[in-house]
C-alpha cells in the first residue's frame, strides 16, 4: 500500500494519473505532460511534492551536528538561507543530495528525496549522537507545494504578504497564505524561478486551492512528476538513482564543490573524499549529450566511441520538450568528455550519433 499525499483527493478531482513513487502515490500527470512542461517554461506549474522528506534539527549544536553529518559547511549558512549539499557514507558514496534550510541559529530543516528519506533520517539521528540537538522527522505531516515558472512571482506575491524582492534564490521566510502559516522558499528543481511552500498536511488542500485561484490569470497548470523529470533534465540537474548513487562520490558527478574540507572537526566520509580529490584517477565524469531526430537515449543505454567500443552509460535521457531534440546525461571517461566530442548511443540496436555538450541544456533568460 502506497501512502497517499495530503492532497490526494484534490488530485483525484483533477483527474490525475497516479504513480507509485518511493512508497507514495503521487500525481504523474493531470493531462498532457508536454503541456505541463510548457506551462512551467512559459507561465507556471503547480506541483505536489509532499513525498519529499523533511527532517528538522533543533538545538544549540545543530550547526555542528550537520557539519559532521553532511559534506557541506552548514554552520556557515546564515539563518533564512538554504544550501544544496549531500550526505555521504564513510567511503564517500552519496547517500542523498539535499537542500538544507537554516531556519534560525539553532534550527535547520533537511529536505531529502522521498526514496532516501528514511535512510537520511536514520543517518542524521545516528550522526547527531553526542551533539546537543534533537532530530525530528516531519516527513509524514508536512506537505510541500511548489509553484515554478516565470509567473510564479506574481502568483506567490498575490497570496502572501512576503517581500519577494528581498527573498533571494535559495532563501526562505516564514509567511502565510489565507491565514495559514507556511515556510516560503525560493527554490526548485525545474530550471525556472520558483517557490516551494512547506505547510502542515491538513492545511495543504486549502493552500492548493488558493494558489490555483490566484494562478488562473497567470497560466498556472497543475503539473505532475512526469514533467518534473523532463524539466530537471533540461536544467542539467542530477536525479538520485540516475546520476547519483552510493557508488559515486560528489566528485564523480562533477559536484565536488559541495564538499567543504575547511570546516572545524571531521565529517563522515572526509578521509575517503580527500583521497578521491587528490587521486589522479581516470574517473568518468558526467556530461550532456545531444542528438538529432526524435529517438531519445534512455537510462542504461550504452555510449560508444568512434570505434564502437562502449565508453559509458546513459543515466537519464528524453526528447527535450523545450528544445525538440534528444538530450541525455551520461558518465564517460575524461578523454571523451570535451564539448564537441562525437560519440554514439546504442538506441535499442541502432547507433545514434550524439555530441557532448556543456550542461545545462536549457537556461532561463535572466
Amino acid at each position, binding site marked *: 500500500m502506497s501512502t497517499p499525499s495530503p492532497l490526494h483527493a484534490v488530485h483525484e478531482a483533477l483527474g490525475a*494519473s497516479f504513480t507509485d513513487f518511493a512508497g507514495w502515490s503521487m500525481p*504523474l*500527470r493531470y493531462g*498532457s*505532460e*508536454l503541456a505541463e512542461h510548457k506551462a512551467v517554461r512559459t507561465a507556471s506549474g503547480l506541483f505536489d511534492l509532499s513525498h519529499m522528506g523533511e527532517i528538522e534539527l533543533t538545538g544549540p549544536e545543530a550547526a555542528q551536528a550537520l557539519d559532521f553529518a553532511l559534506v557541506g559547511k552548514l554552520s556557515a549558512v546564515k539563518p533564512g538561507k538554504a544550501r544544496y549539499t549531500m550526505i555521504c557514507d564513510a567511503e564517500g558514496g552519496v547517500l542523498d543530495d539535499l537542500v538544507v534550510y537554516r531556519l534560525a541559529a539553532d534550527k535547520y530543516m533537511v529536505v531529502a528525496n522521498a526514496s532516501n528519506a528514511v535512510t537520511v533520517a536514520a543517518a542524521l539521528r545516528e550522526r547527531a549522537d553526542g551533539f546537543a540537538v534533537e532530530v525530528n522527522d516531519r516527513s509524514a505531516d508536512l506537505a510541500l507545494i511548489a509553484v515554478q515558472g516565470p509567473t510564479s512571482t506574481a502568483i506567490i506575491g498575490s497570496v502572501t504578504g512576503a517581500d519577494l524582492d528581498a527573498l533571494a534564490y535559495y532563501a526562505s521566510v516564514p509567511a502565510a497564505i489565507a491565514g495559514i502559516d507556511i515556510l516560503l522558499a525560493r527554490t526548485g528543481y525545474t530550471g525556472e524561478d520558483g517557490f516551494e511552500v512547506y505547510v502542515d498536511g491538513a492545511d495543504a488542500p486549502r493552500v492548493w486551492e488558493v494558489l490555483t485561484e490566484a494562478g488562473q490569470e497567470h497560466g498556472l497548470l497543475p503539473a505532475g512528476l*512526469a514533467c518534473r*523529470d*523532463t524539466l530537471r533534465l533540461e536544467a542539467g540537474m542530477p536525479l538520485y538513482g540516475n546520476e547519483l548513487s552510493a557508488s559515486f562520490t560528489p566528485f564523480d558527478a562533477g559536484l565536488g564543490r559541495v564538499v567543504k574540507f575547511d570546516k572545524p572537526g571531521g565529517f563522515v566520509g572526509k578521509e575517503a573524499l580527500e583521497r578521491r580529490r587528490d587521486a589522479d584517477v581516470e574517473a568518468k565524469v558526467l556530461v550532456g549529450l545531444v542528438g538529432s531526430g*526524435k*529517438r*531519445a537515449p*534512455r537510462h542504461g543505454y550504452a555510449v560508444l566511441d568512434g570505434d564502437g567500443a562502449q565508453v559509458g552509460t546513459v543515466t537519464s535521457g*528524453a*526528447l527535450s*520538450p523545450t528544445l525538440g531534440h534528444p538530450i541525455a546525461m551520461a558518465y564517460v571517461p575524461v578523454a571523451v568528455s570535451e564539448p564537441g566530442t562525437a560519440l554514439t548511443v546504442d538506441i*535499442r540496436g541502432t547507433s545514434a550519433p550524439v555530441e557532448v555538450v556543456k550542461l545545462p541544456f536549457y537556461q532561463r533568460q535572466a
Partner: protein
Amino acid sequence: MSNPENLGYTTDHEWVDLADPASATVGVTKYAADALGDVVYVQLPEVGATLTTGEACGEIESTKSVSDLFAPADGVVVEINEAVVDTPELVNTDPFGDGWLFRVRVDGDPELLDAAAYAEHTKED
C-alpha cells in the same frame, strides 16, 4: 472509457478493424495511449513487411517510456499512417480514429478479444 464494439483487441492493448481483411486497420487503444502519456515518436513496420502474430513490429515512444508494437495478426503490411509518423500525438488525441498506425492484409483468422473481454482485461491490469 469506451472501446468501440466493432473492433477486435489484443492483450497488448492494440485494436484491429477487420471489416476489410485485405486492409485491416491496426492501432493502440485509448487505455494504452493514456498509460503511455504523450507519444513523441512512432516507428512503424515498412509497407510489404511480413508480420507474425505476437512478434515486435515497431515502437511507440512517449516522453517517459518506449513500448514495442506487436503484430496483432499474421499478414503483410499494405499501408502505414504517415500522418501519425509526422504527428505522433494523434495516438493520444484520437487513438481509435486518426491515430491509427498501419493496415495489414490479414492471413487466416486472428484470435482477438471482443470489446467486453478487452474491458475485462484492462480491469485486471
